[in-house]
């Protein structure tokens, strides 16, 4: 069975559910601490996930201290070898601060996940948003290849989730968009709240040029099961949740499952 390594930093808090949904998708998942570098180095995984949370208490900038930990040397090396790497929320911040995403020049910091920008609001924001993949991402990103282009509701929970790039890089960024925020019907967002943080180009997830590394601000592991979807959610998924029987809720995948099923498909343990 293929194996995924979930890297836990001090302050990570989503490692157990992330490992759980990977296992549920058919991928053996193990949690490694940030200082388990020798253990992990001797037991390389087939994929790597940096889970959500507040690594090092978000000190200085979210993700920046974790990005400089030695274990990220290994993740960096594996990413360069083409292994799938996913950063969720704080994990995405670590990937950006590691220079793995956008990664035009790997190791150079060429993007930022800055503080949320919304009218009359500042700081931490949590709620449900809709996302949809870019066609390019579905064709080359292991994590997104099981998506069909339909808008998906997913939870967000962050204070620093606004993708920012230099003006001269904006054209290049368009080719790396993994997921975009959208309306419940898949329409272009008209600012807040569809785009909850003021992210450039409405980006919810960005990949590297090869597509194997994905930095994703929403939390797909928090909506892996249908029972995690709020019944009052607008759109098809809310309706599906409302109409589901108690018994079917246990086994029915939620909107976020497609991310982990995509990896399982890529690793050959799942067909679709």
């Amino acid at each position: 069975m293929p194996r995924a390594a979930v890297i836990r930093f001090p302050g990570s808090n989503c490692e157990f559910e992330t490992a759980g949904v990977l296992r549920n998708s058919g991928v053996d998942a193990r949690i490694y601490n940030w200082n388990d570098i020798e253990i992990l180095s001797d037991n390389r995984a087939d994929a790597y996930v940096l889970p959500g949370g507040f690594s090092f208490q978000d000190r200085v900038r979210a993700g920046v201290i974790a990005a400089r930990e030695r274990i990220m040397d290994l993740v960096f090396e594996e990413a360069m070898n083409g292994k799938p790497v996913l950063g969720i929320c704080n994990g995405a911040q670590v990937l950006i601060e590691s220079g793995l995403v956008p990664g035009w020049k790997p190791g150079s910091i060429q993007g930022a996940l800055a503080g949320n920008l919304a009218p009359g609001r500042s700081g931490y924001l949590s709620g449900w948003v809709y996302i949809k993949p870019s066609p390019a991402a579905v064709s080359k990103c292991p994590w997104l290849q099981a998506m069909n282009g339909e808008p998906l509701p997913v939870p967000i929970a962050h204070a620093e989730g606004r993708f920012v790039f230099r003006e001269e890089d904006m054209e290049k960024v368009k080719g790396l968009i993994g997921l975009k925020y959208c309306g419940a019907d898949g329409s272009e967002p008209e600012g807040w709240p569809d785009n909850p943080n003021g992210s450039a180009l409405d980006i919810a997830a960005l990949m590297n040029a090869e597509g194997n590394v994905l930095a994703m601000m929403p939390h797909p592991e928090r909506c892996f099961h249908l029972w995690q979807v709020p019944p009052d959610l607008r759109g098809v998924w809310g309706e599906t949740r409302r109409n589901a029987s108690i018994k079917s809720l246990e086994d029915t995948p939620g909107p976020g499952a497609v991310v982990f099923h995509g990896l399982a498909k890529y690793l050959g343990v799942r067909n679709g």
Partner: protein
Amino acid sequence: MDSIQIAVRLKTPDPEAVTVMNAFRSMGLQLPPLKLQRHTLWQFQVMEGGKDTVSAIAGHFTDIVNPNKHIWCFAETGSALDGEDADLQWTGIVVRDHQNSESNNWTELLNRRGFPVKSVRLGALWRFGYLTDSDEALIQKMAMDLSVSRTRTGGLLSNPVSQEVSIWI
């Protein structure tokens, strides 16, 4: 119109500064700073009342200065800040976001409460303490190098894509 800045810091040792010092040590610097202090830097464009207005703001909003845990002082460039070790030579780095909701929201809030403030700008002021016989230009360069994250193994305190950095002289 007066531009008045205040620096607010914790009374207790700042855990963020401790983390940064640890990170600096792991970077294997030849000449790391001996001390590092972090302040939140509030810059107010005040339309009337000058320092009295800013003192009133600092005394009114515990989100800015919580007297149970914070110490604050007026921060004037070129001068030492209250509580700094006189045996060290200090240089400062200011990090500010290019765009920041919090600054705009504070401006609106203060106006609603009747404070004559045109704008508020938030930032972080990092004070690096070096040996007193250090070359000033050299320590400024070292502080700046440590402050700008251009690579994942380089500086630490600011992301140049979303933040601006300046020397606090």
